[in-house]
């Protein structure tokens, strides 16, 4: 063999391998768990010519051809009809203290039956649940758990509420919605833990059937949202406004990540917005960032930064500002907005003494907003 032949043959072999290997690897990348999928028609989409559809659930407004999936990975166009692939297909089910969600003004000291499917419509580099949010439903082990069964299980485990959580419940909207309706019939409440990336119409419909919504406000600049979340800040702020105006209980979580969204000027601006746009009574949680997923090499948030954030928000007039992931810190307890005495003492997820009666401070009688029973 001469040099030219050698090169030609090696290049040829390389091309063949190069063409075939990606599909082979993709096959091994995708179909690990062989999770089962659902085929339930989705809501909030419109049909277009040539069997295309446009999703109307979230601002991405995915326009999809036949056999294409939305950005979230769990909704698919099949022949011009849009289907949710995760209806009744839970991949994670746990019983968690409601404080873990966190909801601090909603049935304190109780447990929430927490359920999730695969998928998400944003891509946070710091996602705590990336093993289910950043994958397709075929890549997880799904359990058939129809809506009515979840409500029954909540009763069986004495959970007064169901939390749609871990990944992004907006992407399993239909499942969540039907479960909430069934749960309400059994007097089980529904709590939504969401990034808030949803269009107004589905949000309004959802508000009608759930009892509490916690929105993760991941940052307060579109730069941050674009670079680290791949989402849209304006949509999230609109979601918060809409929920605040409804009868549904609202709490907000702000995950503080060192150098990325921890400037006090930005936090002050955010706190002002919350006070002016949604009210000073809305609980705001500053949560400590723990390194994981794509940013597991970043440093965690210093507690002093969280304390400074809390002080800043309280300084802007917000009444209920908490620290998350710092067990035992005074910033975990609820203080009466009038007399400043601790009305709910907390250490981590454990609720200690509660000095409320009928939603009022036992010391001075001032009203403390929340869902207490």
């Amino acid at each position, binding site marked *: 063999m001469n040099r030219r032949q050698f090169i030609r043959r090696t290049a040829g072999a390389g091309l063949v391998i190069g063409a075939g290997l990606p599909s082979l690897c993709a096959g091994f990348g995708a179909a690990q768990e062989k999770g089962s999928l659902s085929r339930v028609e989705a809501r909030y989409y419109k049909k277009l010519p040539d069997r295309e559809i446009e999703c109307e659930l979230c601002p991405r407004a995915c326009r999809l051809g036949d056999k294409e999936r939305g950005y979230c990975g769990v909704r698919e166009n099949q022949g011009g009809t849009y289907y949710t692939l995760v209806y009744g297909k839970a991949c994670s089910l746990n019983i968690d203290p409601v404080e873990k969600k966190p909801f601090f003004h909603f049935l304190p000291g109780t447990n929430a039956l927490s359920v999730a499917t695969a998928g998400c419509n944003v891509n946070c580099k710091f996602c705590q649940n990336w093993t289910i949010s950043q994958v397709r439903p075929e890549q997880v082990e799904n359990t058939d758990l129809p809506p009515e069964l979840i409500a029954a299980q909540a009763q069986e485990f004495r959970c007064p509420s169901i939390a749609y959580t871990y990944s992004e419940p907006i992407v399993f909207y239909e499942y969540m919605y039907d479960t909430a309706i069934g749960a309400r019939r059994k007097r089980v409440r529904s709590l939504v833990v969401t990034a808030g990336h949803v269009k107004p119409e589905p949000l309004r419909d959802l508000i009608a059937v759930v009892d509490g919504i916690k929105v993760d406000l991941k940052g307060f600049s579109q730069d941050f949202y674009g670079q680290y979340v791949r989402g849209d800040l304006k949509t999230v702020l609109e979601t918060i406004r809409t929920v605040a105006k409804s009868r549904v209980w609202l709490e907000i979580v702000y995950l503080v990540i060192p150098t990325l969204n921890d400037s006090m000027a930005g936090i002050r601006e955010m706190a002002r917005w919350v006070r002016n746009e949604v009210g000073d009574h809305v609980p705001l949680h500053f949560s400590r960032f723990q390194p994981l997923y794509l940013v597991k090499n970043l440093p965690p948030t210093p507690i002093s930064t969280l304390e400074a954030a809390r002080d800043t928000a309280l300084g802007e007039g917000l009444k209920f500002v908490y620290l998350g992931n710092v067990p035992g810190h005074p910033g975990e307890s609820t203080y009466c907005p009038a007399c400043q005495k601790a009305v709910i003492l907390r250490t981590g*997820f454990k609720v200690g003494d509660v000095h409320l009666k009928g939603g009022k401070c036992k010391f001075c009688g001032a009203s403390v907003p929340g869902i207490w029973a």
Partner: protein
Amino acid sequence: MQVLRRLRAGNLGLSTGPPALLLGFLATAFQIYLLREFAVHFYGNELTFGFVLGAWLLWGGIGSLVGPKLRIRPDRLPELYTAAIGLFFSGLVLLRFSHRLLGALPGELTGLVPALVFSLVLALFISFPLGLAFVLNAALLGGDAPRVYLLESLGAALAGLAVHLLLVPGVSNWAGAALVAAAGGLMIFFAFRRTQAWRLLAGTLAAAILFAAADVPSLKSAWKPFALIAAEDTPFGKLQVLKTGDQFSFYSNGLALFSYPDTEAAEESVHFALLQRPEVKDVLLIGGGISGGCAEILKYPGTRVDYVEINPAIIRLAERHLPAPAIAALRNPRVRVAFEDGRAFLERTEKTYDAILVNLPEPATAQINRFYTREFYAEARKKLGSSGVLSFIVPSAENYINRDLQQFLETLDRTLRDVFPNVVAVPGENNVFLGSASPLSVDAGAMAASMQRLGIHNTFVSPEMLPARLAALRIDYLKEKIRAGEGLVNRDLVPVSYYFHSILWASQFKGLESGALRLFSRIPAFWVLDAPLVATALALAFGAFKKRRSPARFLVPVAFAGFSSILVEIAVLIVFQSSFGYVYGKISLLLCSFMAGLAAGSFAGLRQKGQSPAGLAAVQGTLAVVILLVLKMAVSRGSEALPFLALAAVGTLSGYLFVAGNRLFLKEVPRPGTGYGIDLLASFVGVILASSFVIPLFGIPLLLGRLAVLNILGFLFTLTLAAFPAGPGLARSGTGTAFGSIGKADRTGPGRGSPGP
């Protein structure tokens, strides 16, 4: 030919040796620093080292291949070397700002594809010009490429020694690289002695000074928006310290080691284990003492702590930057600090402990994998009392354990159960594994009662937090997941946990990396190790008994030597680190041994008046025997000198085989390109296969055994050639490259490479 005679070394005012010596020196030194810096920015594990080494071989060979076609005059060699130095500096700058270029945060994980791309780009910058330089050197020495090979190997050995001497505290990687480059500039000047050489020297020295001066500022800039307050290159890796508010974070080779204060991490590493045996007295803590581990252990009355930390620089930096309370625990008379490899300490100590706490990063590299193997646990069990507990922590996922994480955790659990009859795992964002000969419990109530009895107050491992973390559903879920399958046992020489961690790590990037690694893990050993041997045997038999034999038959030993030597190098390094501890500081000397052997072998080949297939067969057979001896060394602990001797022996035999095989080949066909092409491809394939999955999945003993068989096949083949002399083969073409009539043997491009810094 007249042109070439005029361009001979004597006419250019240089002595014959230094230019080729310089090639080996620069190539090897550049490669070592490139690998060290690559490890810092791409979380160096053996997989990424394989990329760099493979890319280096690829571009060096391509440089040698295209060199004649570019028709660069050999008298431009000084400029080429100087350009290579400049490109080396540029490459390291690119690497330092790699995350910025990728649009990623300084601490962000980036996946295998960027690592591969960067390794290809950097090797193109640095190895390609040195590949060109080899061809020019061959022309300068009248086409005596074997002599170039010998001198280059000597230069490489010298570089290994020089870099080892420079790897001292206080001399950063960039400063060391600048010194090496400056030395290279001086060597260029003295080797070529031309007027223009002054300018080249001045330029090189200026660049070296600027480069060294830019080290700290560029490091700080690369870490922005985070505040880097300290950095130190140690024999164990590059340490860096960030300050965020009142918190300090320590990094080693780009990976987070610990933050202070970080109460949760400190408590997790201690209390789940010690609450199993509240009467604990003697505790061995491997790593993590300065980040709060010691302080947490001291909460237990009367405990005595042996805290082992391999890198004294961590303590030194901590004493300089951390607040007093962080250091106070180390100054407690109940704490004894030892600067030593944790495993070596464990093997050496005669003490018995109530608890051994392994507080190290997860097995993301084959080096750290040593603390998660059956052999390590067996040693730990010998040093634990009858109710003693061993614990370690790995990152996990709280709410869903996917298939990749499950496989990874399975190996850890399985390995622990192979040694300890009682094993439990604590669920959560991090999983704490506990092993003991006596029963264990993850009951929140029992732990809370112990804490109360002892008067221990914790924040995270506390009566308030434990019920949620140790909920029955979560414990059962984790147990069900990690015991669903058989699980492979993680061994020193079969580091499967490291491999499955690589799959898990790669799965975060949504690319093909994880699919590729997963694909490899499902291929049975027969198809990887045995089927190719069978196919090779058949091909050799066919080639040996053909009527008209190809001249390429003499390159079979060359290919086998190239393939085998790189695999043996990598295997010996892994064996060294598992037997004798951290290999980081010794790698240059190990490389030096191999290169010195290579030089010796090629010298012997050059000195020999005439080569013959019988001689080739004898040496090939000897190589097979040496590989078997390396296998014996791998499975039984011997003297620390043995790995050095093994590498020198393999290098010597490989060097001889290359020179002799090429000489025989070129007698029939004057095409120097084919020989180095075969050697290149063989080494490239060897390094990619070994780093990516062969060693992690199948282990070193199996690999070395198959390599010995391969060389036995080669021995039998060349013996057949000796017994039945070759036919005419291909006719002489009479053409070839500009150096065709004078080029006798050629070899791989610049530097055969070390598998790690």
